[in-house]
């Protein structure tokens, strides 16, 4: 069972690599090196702040786009092209396929983030010529970004298990945007009354709370991140991704592959 999931995951990773998904790293490197040279020339004292903000935001956005772009086709493309027929007619359970696909996509994003992180640290070294202890906080921000990716991957798989790639992309991107303002939604819910309060509270807790994962600005200002937040975000991402994946499995287990 574990090995079948690993085989499916590694094939998903191989597909991403062969389809030149990792070429985005070139665009990322160009963006970051351009930005580092640019801010190095025009700003005084805030070069580091700009590089960290820009670098980590780019890591997050590049990864989200890749997660949605690949994730939406993970199941629907296999059904459409009928590649799934020769996989599921083997001793592969449907849930193994979904979980394998998830790990393949998540692994692709982790590798992608690893190379981008090297880029961020290189740009940082270029503008400040040294590393300080507080720079290690960037690793926490990167960890939170990776957790965000796990949630997005599981959600795109969930949408991909029942809808078309286009609709899946719309759903996933909308949830990402709404989730980035989840704190505002929660504040609104606490101020609303009656039915709208009930509705807003439900929506606020149902959408993924991405705002809790965004520590880029505070880290750029060298403010520490509480250990409790790290634990809380880890458990939240684990719970949310498991729930979304379970939903994907439940739908896919009952789906006729016409």
């Amino acid at each position, binding site marked *: 069972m574990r090995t079948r999931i690993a*085989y499916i995951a590694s*094939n998903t990773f191989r597909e991403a690599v062969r389809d030149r998904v990792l070429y985005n790293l070139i665009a990322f490197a160009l963006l970051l090196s351009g930005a580092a040279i640019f801010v190095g020339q025009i700003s005084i004292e805030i070069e580091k702040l700009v590089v960290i903000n820009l670098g980590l935001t780019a890591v997050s956005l590049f990864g989200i786009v890749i997660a949605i772009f690949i994730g939406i086709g993970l199941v629907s493309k296999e059904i459409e092209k*009928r590649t*799934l027929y020769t996989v*599921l*007619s*083997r*001793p592969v*359970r449907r849930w193994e396929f979904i979980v394998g696909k998830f790990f393949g996509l998540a692994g692709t994003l982790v590798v992608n983030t690893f190379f981008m992180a090297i880029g961020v640290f290189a740009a940082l070294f270029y503008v400040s010529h040294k590393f300080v202890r507080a720079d290690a906080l960037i690793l926490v921000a990167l960890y939170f970004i990776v957790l965000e990716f796990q949630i997005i991957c599981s959600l795109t798989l969930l949408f991909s298990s029942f809808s078309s790639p286009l609709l899946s992309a719309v759903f996933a991107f909308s949830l990402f945007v709404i989730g980035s303002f989840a704190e505002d939604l929660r504040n609104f819910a606490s101020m609303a009354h009656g039915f709208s309060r009930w509705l807003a509270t439900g929506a606020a807790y149902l959408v993924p709370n991405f705002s809790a994962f965004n520590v880029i600005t505070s880290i750029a200002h060298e403010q520490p991140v509480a250990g409790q937040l790290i634990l809380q975000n880890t458990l939240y991402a684990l719970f949310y991704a498991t729930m979304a994946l379970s939903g994907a499995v439940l739908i896919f287990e009952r789906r*006729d592959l016409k």
Partner: protein
Amino acid sequence: MPAIEILGLEKTYSVGFWRKRLKLALHPLSLTVEDGEIFGFLGPNGAGKTTTLKLLMGLVFPSAGSARILGREWTDPSVKAQIGFLPEQPYFYDYLTAHELLEYYGQLSGVPAKQRKQRVEHVLDQVGLRDVQGVQLRKFSKGMLQRVGIGQAILHDPKIVFFDEPMSGLDPIGRREVRDLMSQLKSEGKTVFFSTHILSDAETLCDRVAIIHKGELRGVGAVEDLTSSVQGTVEVIWHGSQVPASIKALGAGCHVTGDRVRATINESQQDAIIDALRRERLRLIAITPVRTSLEAYFVEKLRRAETTAGSTK
């Protein structure tokens, strides 16, 4: 123990967006395929052949009924290690090479790592893809993809292979090779279940066939039984270029081709035509009973089904 037992499998789809209605894709189907036989599943396009195969592969779920494969419930995952499946017009991960694809399917089928390499090499040889094993599948022609499809179906040395329209898209040589491969699989003791609408292939290969039309089973039996309903007619061939009057008098329908004459005649006149040929000193080449072709049987079944459906409307 039969290789495959289909016990009243039925499939109904819900169609329409707003006003849902049910469409019966497969009437309750019951069928038994014996161990070691080549079984042809015949029917025109849209008859329900692919639906049946998808049901057996667990790709769609039945509305009713069940099946047993090798004596076990068809949904039992251990059964799937013993079967191979070639879908109609197969499409594979085109970023992989033929070798990588077979290796991947070997992994998923649970072929032990030690044997996997050997099996992949053997199957690449068997389907004639050894020379292009390192080429990505996106550069393969339709015929080559069909070969890859057959390769992945037999890779894990299954006991039963299911082929959905295996000759589709193949040139005459490719079709011949697939036919030879199926015969070889049978000689290795495997059961072959294949769907086709090319009747000549079924007639050449199959031990038994089933005919399906509009989701309903119309007939099943050994090819010889279905085609041996001799019309009481024999075909007589002799050397010559003219038809003697004594043979014409027997009421034979004659056709001259080059230096041969073919005559079809009622079986009861067989001795009389032989006597006439002796008298005329003509050299007899062959006498063969005229059999109903599988095609004639098939067309007759479908015509009868259409008539029945028309009269019940």
